[in-house]
């Protein structure tokens, strides 16, 4: 017997007894003193009523769980938005939401859903669901009508790490800027580049990296009247990579070789140079046998087609083997390729044409959007070989060998270099063909920096890899918000700018990916240390770049939008829930009070009984 029925039985018995008592009292009493019928009736009716109310107080009837939609107010929700929506059964407000009447404050969405089980749909109002609440949505239907995002930089891509002297290409999208401009300022606060955003608001600005270390660049968004709309920091980490060891072989000395060697020396690449000058005489470092051990000491072999032809079959085969082990091979095609070379290249996956003709090279301007690359008031190295021509004054026309690469899977490094530089993997290594013929003209035209960038790109594409792959830190980490760091191993440490370090705990459910969560609480450069290597990442302050944050929130929420609940995942049936006891208790109290009053009151008793005391006194 469960307590419910026991209590019910006791109560029923009590009611019965009480009723019996009342009836007996009425029956036994002399007719004169009998109470009025309405009084008796009322008393009799109140007995079961109060018993029932008591029972309901103890076990209030379960509420029927309603199946419906819930309006979730998030940051930036306004009354107007709320009014415009069809009214949902439940309105909850997340902690970020402004105080709006009629919404119930909940600490998070999960709590709200537990309070209102059976909810099948969510209507999100405001900026969007923060990361904390996204998992709680689960398979529910979600409708989200995003508000217009704030004006400013909504999307931003900046390189994670740049080598010194490299180009920093910052792309992004601004929102709400009409006829405005985006400009990039270097750490000295000078404008280095500027671009008007296109119709979609996209822009690309380019800066140049100098010495190693964090370089705080700043992106400024200006409106049509050149007033500042937003200024966000774009910190760039400039870091020196271990320079690749280069074996530079040339079939003849020429300007191209000279300036290539010169740039490589400027960039600090350890080099072994050998150039044939004909008749069995060569200049440069000692001759190499090019065996496996020697080639293992190089990261990149740069060879022109004449030197390639002069290598001989044995050394070419050794070179191909070394490439399969990870070595990079850059073949500079500066003249028409003989048939034999073309056949040899087929073994490396290229089937190039002869390239008997020269074609003009599409060369980007010295600096995009008229940026002052390489300029500046700094200490400019004075080069005897660079006459004082203004950089990029005259359009330079560079030439390349017009040949088909003949490899469908040959990849381009960038769009600008696609017509003269292609590479494809060969084993662990990479082989590239470069058909540019007179890049040295850039140096003579005073655009030495561009020449360096050109070849830096080519070298970087094929050189032997170095260092383990970087862990992937979630986009735009922000203080106070969890960021996912993937690709980490056990024992990775994050060093915060205040000197505190925290060990990352791998998510056991993350699989082989090796993901961990990290909650930065301070803005600034954090360092992720793993396996003796440092991977810096920048954490923005919580209020920094609001448009960027709004866009991220909006996109993440929009990704959850779903018309109907996902039926593949069954909706958990709503748990019946206990109603509140309070109304029942109050009702019971009321009933009892009435009973008590009725029992005590004279009202409804027989009129003659009013002077009861004298009557009773007469009895004895």
């Amino acid at each position, binding site marked *: 017997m469960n307590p419910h029925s026991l209590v019910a039985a006791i109560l029923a018995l009590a009611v019965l007894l009480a009723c019996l008592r009342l009836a007996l009292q009425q029956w036994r009493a002399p007719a004169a003193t009998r109470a009025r019928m309405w009084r008796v009736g009322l008393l009799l009716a109140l007995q079961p009523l109060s018993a029932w109310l008591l029972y309901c107080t103890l076990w209030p009837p379960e509420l029927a769980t309603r199946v419906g939609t819930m309006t979730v107010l998030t940051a930036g929700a306004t009354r107007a938005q709320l009014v415009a929506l069809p009214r949902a059964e439940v309105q909850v407000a997340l902690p970020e939401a402004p105080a709006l009447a009629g919404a119930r404050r909940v600490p998070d969405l999960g709590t709200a859903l537990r309070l209102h089980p059976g909810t099948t749909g969510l209507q999100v109002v405001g900026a969007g669901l923060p990361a904390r609440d996204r998992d709680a949505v689960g398979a529910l239907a979600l409708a989200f009508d995003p508000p217009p995002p704030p004006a400013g930089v909504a999307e931003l891509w900046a390189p994670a790490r*740049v*080598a010194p002297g490299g180009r920093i290409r910052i792309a992004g999208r601004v929102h709400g800027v009409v006829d405005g401009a985006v400009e990039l300022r270097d750490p000295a606060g000078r404008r280095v580049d500027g671009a008007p955003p296109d119709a979609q608001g996209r822009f690309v600005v380019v800066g140049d990296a100098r010495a190693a270390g964090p370089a705080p660049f700043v992106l400024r968004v200006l409106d049509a009247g050149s007033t500042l709309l937003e200024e966000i920091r774009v910190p760039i980490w400039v870091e020196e990579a271990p320079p690749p060891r280069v074996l530079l072989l040339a079939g003849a000395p020429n300007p191209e070789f000279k300036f290539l060697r010169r740039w490589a020396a400027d960039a600090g690449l350890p080099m072994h140079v050998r150039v044939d000058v004909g008749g069995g005489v060569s200049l440069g470092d000692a001759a190499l046998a090019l065996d496996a051990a020697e080639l293992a000491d190089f990261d990149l072999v740069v060879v022109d087609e004449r030197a390639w032809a002069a290598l001989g079959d044995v050394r070419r085969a050794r070179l191909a083997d070394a490439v399969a082990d990870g070595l990079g091979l850059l073949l500079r095609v500066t003249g028409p390729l003989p048939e034999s070379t073309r056949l040899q290249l087929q073994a490396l996956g290229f089937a190039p044409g002869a390239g008997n003709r020269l074609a003009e090279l599409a060369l980007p301007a010295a600096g995009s959007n008229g940026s002052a690359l390489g300029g500046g008031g700094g200490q400019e190295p004075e080069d005897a070989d660079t006459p004082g021509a203004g950089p990029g004054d005259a359009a330079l026309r560079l030439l390349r060998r017009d040949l088909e690469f003949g490899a469908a899977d040959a990849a381009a490094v960038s769009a600008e270099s696609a017509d003269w530089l292609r590479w494809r993997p060969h084993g662990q290594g990479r082989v590239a063909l470069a058909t540019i013929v007179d890049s040295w003209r850039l140096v003579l035209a005073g655009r030495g920096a561009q020449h360096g*960038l050109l070849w830096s790109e080519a070298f970087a594409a094929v050189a032997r890899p170095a260092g383990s792959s970087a862990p992937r830190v979630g986009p735009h980490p922000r203080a106070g918000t969890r960021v996912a760091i993937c690709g980490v191993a056990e024992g990775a440490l994050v060093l915060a700018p205040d000197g505190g370090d925290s060990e990352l705990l791998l998510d056991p459910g993350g699989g082989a990916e090796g993901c961990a969560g990290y909650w930065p609480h301070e803005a600034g450069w954090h360092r992720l240390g793993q396996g003796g290597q440092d991977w810096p990442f920048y954490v923005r302050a919580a209020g920094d770049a609001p448009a960027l944050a709004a866009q991220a929130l909006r996109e993440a929420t929009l990704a959850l939008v779903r018309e109907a609940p996902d039926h593949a995942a069954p909706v958990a049936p709503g748990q019946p829930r206990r109603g509140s006891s309070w109304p029942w208790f109050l009702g019971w109290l009321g009933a009892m009070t009435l009973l008590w009053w009725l029992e005590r009151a004279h009202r409804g008793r027989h009129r003659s009984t009013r002077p009861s005391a004298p009557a009773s006194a007469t009895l004895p």
Partner: protein
Amino acid sequence: MSAIAPALVTALRAVRIRLAADDALLAAPLVALAGALGWRLGGVAQATALAALGVLAAAALLWRRLRRENPARLARRLDSKQREFEDSTGLLLADEAALGPLQRLQRERLRQRLAAGPIPDLRPPWSRRRNLGVWLLALPLVAALSLWPTNERERGAKQDPARSAAVAAGAPRLVSHTLRIAPPAYTALPARELDGLEAKAPAGSRLYWTLRFAPQPKRAHLVFHDGTRVPLTRDGEDWTASHVLARAALYRVVPEGAPTRPPPPLHRLDAIADRAPRVRVLAPERTLSSLQPGQRSWALAFEASDDYGVAVDGRLHLTLARGSGENITFETRTRVLRGRGDPMRRRFEVELDLGPFDLAPGEDLVAQLEVRDTRAPGPQAARSPSLILRRPAEPMPDVVGLEGLARKVLPAYFRSQRQIIIDAEALLAERPRLDEARFLARSDGLGVDQRLLRLRYGQFLGEESEGGPRPLPTADAEDHAPSAVSPALPIDDLGQDSGTAPTPSGERGDGHVGEHDHRDPRDHDPGRDRDDGHAGAEAEASGGPPASVRPPPAHDHEHDHDHGDAQVDDTTFGRVADVLAEFGHTHDLPEAATLLDPVTRETLRGALREMWQSELHLRQGAPAQALPYAHRALELIKQVQQADRIYLARVGPELPPIDPARRLGGDRAGIASRALPAAVAERGADVPGRLWRALGDESAAGDLGAELDALENWLHGADARMEDPLALVAAVDALRNAPHCEACRHELRALLWSALAPPAAAVPRRPDGDDQERRYLDAIGQEPPR
């Protein structure tokens, strides 16, 4: 007190000691807590103060408590402790006289009992629980307060001013300051006083400092960033100094006895350099204007502006270019103009009377105004652009249909005397291999060359050329005869050289002039004729390549206006100026021959004689006999050359043609593999780069001293190459004085960025893939390439 009192007194003392110890035990952790709190919030001073306060408070409380511990209380305590005293211990303390007999009796009994046994331990028990609780609470708190990691930088920053304030309490301090700027008189700017210690003033201003210190230092200096010190002199309460602001500088006020760490702040003085005046031409509108027919005067108007004022006097330089072609002489005159109007913006106007200049057609009058500003030591000058007034050249007669003819002339080829000797010797050497006719022909050719050369030199002695009216310096007269005979039309050398033939002054009417100047292919120096026209400095001077190798570039139209000019004059009506050239016949080169000194003249004549002989023998086919004369002629010509100035040609490198015979000879002596020279020169240490990296590494804060020193040294070396080195100096100083100042670091980094040399693009490395990637690459490598 009575006899038993000592025992009670001992007991009382014991009680008091116990109480004091107990309370001390309680107070100690609390005082320590207060001290720790003070240290945390302030520093050592605050900690001591708070701890002392705590001790005082504890002592006061204890004193109050001990005062309550009087003998009466002790008696009550004894009563409660020892039953045998029967609640009467108070009697022991009471005045004996005041006691009744019964009380005395009782007292006597008590005394005995007191003497009989030891007084029980009356000391209150240790309040263990209370003390333990306080200790347990306070100790962790103290530990937490003192050991909790602080933000080190914040504390450093906080401590610095506190410490310096503490140190500086007795050190002289700058309490008031005035800086008066007296700009140089010429600027006419009023002197002004500044509240601050930083100033921006015209260069050359005198700055007067009036400073007050408290307390008074013994001495005080203004120390500039380059190390110079300006002593302050005391004048009552005030300290004064003055300094002439020549260029921007940083300085600090250093009273003797002031703390050197940190040094007083740097102040900046900026010098506004005086701009040079600028001249704008108001009239004429264009730089080159041509003289209108009938124009008698030339109106010029300039406007000169300067930041402080333009001197009233301006100098108008007038240059008259006379002559034409290469034979131009210049006359320069200077006229002083007086400007009108506001000193900042003066107007200089002049109406030049052209009468005295007497411009001939094609001649130029160049005017240029030079103004000065009023700068006191050494005014700055500026010049206007040159304004040219040109009298238009004579219109060219109709030459339609003659272009072909006009160009059909051959360049004249000369051989130098040395070349003739060399060729003659070569001819002699080849003689055995040559047949007679050929030998004669070549010898004769050399004779012709010798003749041409003789004629060429003969001009300078006024000799009549024997060829009659024939262009002399042509390759050979015979070939050219038609051109000379045919009416020499006013071909385009008229247009070029119109100034030569029709000179108004008849003195240069002789065609020799025109013929001489620059028509010689070997004539390396156009300027010579303008000087003296000495022929002595002939091509021999250079001893250079054979003249035949170097065809003169602009020769084709200059060859034959010897007497051609006369014919031109015939056909061109109205040229009265050349009457002499037409009808007379001057036998001398007016500017050359007459000016040769007699000795040179005689030598030249001797050379000509020798040339005659040389020519004679060459023409007769006897080069061997001609050689001695030729040698002597060469020697004499050399003497003439040495007798006068020599002008050498300024010509570009003319590489000799490649001789294919010398290539691919198969001779590989001295050719071997060798190392290449280094591709780049050693570059200096990248000082700003090193500091930039050091500043970027937040963890390595503090030990920047060496880098900062290096940067300062570098700045002194590379001063001129920076936009604003002073800003960098100031930023370095600021950081050095406040090593933990984040803003200073950022500012210095920002300045450093512009000082960084853009490095050559380095090669970024792609990361190594994981095992999965490697397996993938291996797997696709297995596939046969398509």
